[in-house]
């Protein structure tokens, strides 16, 4: 059986499930951030900082960050395997697709490290 070598979990069903799990986490996090703006629309620096400094929020932010990485990888992988194929690019499709996926992986790594620095640094 030929399986794809660059998908997240070696199984489409696993990827599908992870995409939905991470979606729920990201949705909850987005609503949480929107909620903090609604409750207190004119925050100053101290109040804004306090929102992200509590341990609960730090953990939630980290989980959301990891969910973002998973979600982005599965999403960008799906896009690349649907639109960067031999149908559109001919013989060199595999090369360009892997190049694109490598670029996405790099960006995701940057987001992860950067995000950890923002939420957990200092």
């Amino acid at each position, binding site marked *: 059986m030929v399986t794809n070598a660059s998908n997240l979990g070696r199984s489409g069903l696993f990827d599908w499930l992870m995409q939905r799990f991470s979606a729920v986490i990201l*949705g909850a996090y987005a609503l949480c951030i929107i909620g903090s*703006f609604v409750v207190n*629309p004119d925050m*100053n620096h101290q109040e804004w900082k306090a929102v992200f400094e509590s341990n609960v929020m730090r953990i939630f932010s980290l989980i959301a960050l990891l969910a973002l990485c998973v979600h982005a990888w599965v999403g960008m992988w799906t896009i690349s395997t649907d639109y960067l194929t031999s149908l559109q690019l001919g013989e060199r499709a595999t090369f360009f697709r892997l190049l694109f996926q490598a670029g996405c992986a790099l*960006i995701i790594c940057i987001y992860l490290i950067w995000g950890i620095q*923002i939420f957990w640094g200092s």
Partner: protein
Amino acid sequence: MHRLSGAFIFFGVAVLLYLLELSLQSESGFALVLQLMDNLLVKLLVWAVVAGLLYHLIAGIKHLLMDLGIGETMKGGVIGASLTLLLSACAIVISGVWIW
């Protein structure tokens, strides 16, 4: 549309992360973000990313509901799609008002 907005916010999130980092860094960083947000181009950029996020969020909720078997009929699909566009448009306009 869901894929397009997804790919767009994949890159757009960098803008929000940058502003978040700056705003949390220090009092002056926070003031700088407020100052940056006075700039029309920054406003448009942030609004574009927020719009992409809101659409992706609302369409994503619709997708999850459909995964649960809600609105899977032809009629349900049309209602779901219309509702998604309507709610997204409202949310995007409200976020625009809030940014300005």
